[in-house]
């Protein structure tokens, strides 16, 4: 619990910002130098769903039963009501309840 001294934290913060800006523009820039064939376009179109699946599956596996329950609640809620906020709220409530019950 020591207060940070000097400019080092500010340097670290701007280093983080620079790293983040780099990855934010790099993918778009890169695709300007790849010919937009039918195959490339289809791959880019498949990318959003793939990013989502690649993020969710390991995080749920890592989070155990309460995380699995939460994601199941989110998916069922979305299929029934198509409301992201309601789905996420219900999912988090399910996880909180499961954890309070010791799951």
């Amino acid at each position: 619990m020591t207060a940070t001294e000097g400019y080092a934290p500010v340097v670290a913060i701007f280093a983080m910002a620079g790293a983040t800006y780099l990855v934010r523009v790099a993918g778009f820039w890169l695709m300007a130098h790849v010919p937009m064939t039918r195959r490339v376009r289809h791959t880019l179109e498949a990318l959003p769903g793939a990013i989502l699946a690649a993020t969710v599956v390991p995080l749920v596996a890592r989070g155990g039963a309460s995380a699995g329950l939460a994601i199941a609640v989110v998916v069922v809620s979305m299929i029934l009501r198509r409301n992201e906020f309601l789905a996420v709220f219900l999912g988090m409530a399910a996880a909180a309840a499961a954890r309070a019950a010791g799951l």
Partner: protein
Amino acid sequence: MTQHPPSPYWSMAGLSLGARLAVPFLPGTAVFAAAFGTIAAQKGLTLAEAVLMSAVVFAGASQLVAMEVWAEPLTLATVASIAVVTAIVNMRFLLMGASLRPWFGPLPAWQVYPALLTTTDANWLVAIRYRTEGGGDAAVFLGVALTLWVFWVGSTVPGYLLGAVVSDPKRFGLDLVMPAFFAAMMIPLWRGPRRGVGWAVAGAVALAAAHLVPGWWFIVIGALAGALIGGLLDDRD
């Protein structure tokens, strides 16, 4: 199959549509930012430093992970590892930017690149869904981001000051906000079992990568595998 999505453009209407579409994300964003503020306070950052980080980095997961690497004193080596960890956690933005190329590509570079600096999970998700439904207004992407940025930066302050309120984010399921939103967004993106094969590959490869490779690389590895397979299986024109 001759329907072409409309050419990209910017409008004030898109900006305000983006602001409206950001509303479902506001509670989660505020609580997530507050959790970051709390942890930043515990790590010994000043209030100004915590707010500065939220303002210029604007990427929640990477800010939380950076707090784990943050150690006093901040040597050059520590700063370098903080920057590398940040880049790795945010590597998914690279793929998100690539996925925006077919849409934003025709716009002038001096307009697109500043807008891309605001890329986060939420504005990319909202924009991709809007595009899937046939929209062309790139300002939607920016409208979501600017709205969330105000709440993200603003909510860092009470989190920092009232640190004890969310001392244990897991108790309220807050650690699941990002995967929950991602899972929710998969439902409107569903295009039948044939496209679903790519998702299954992405999930399976990411799961394997999470066991074999340290850190957050599993997102990039799994997503690339899933998109390549999904792209190969897609036999439309």
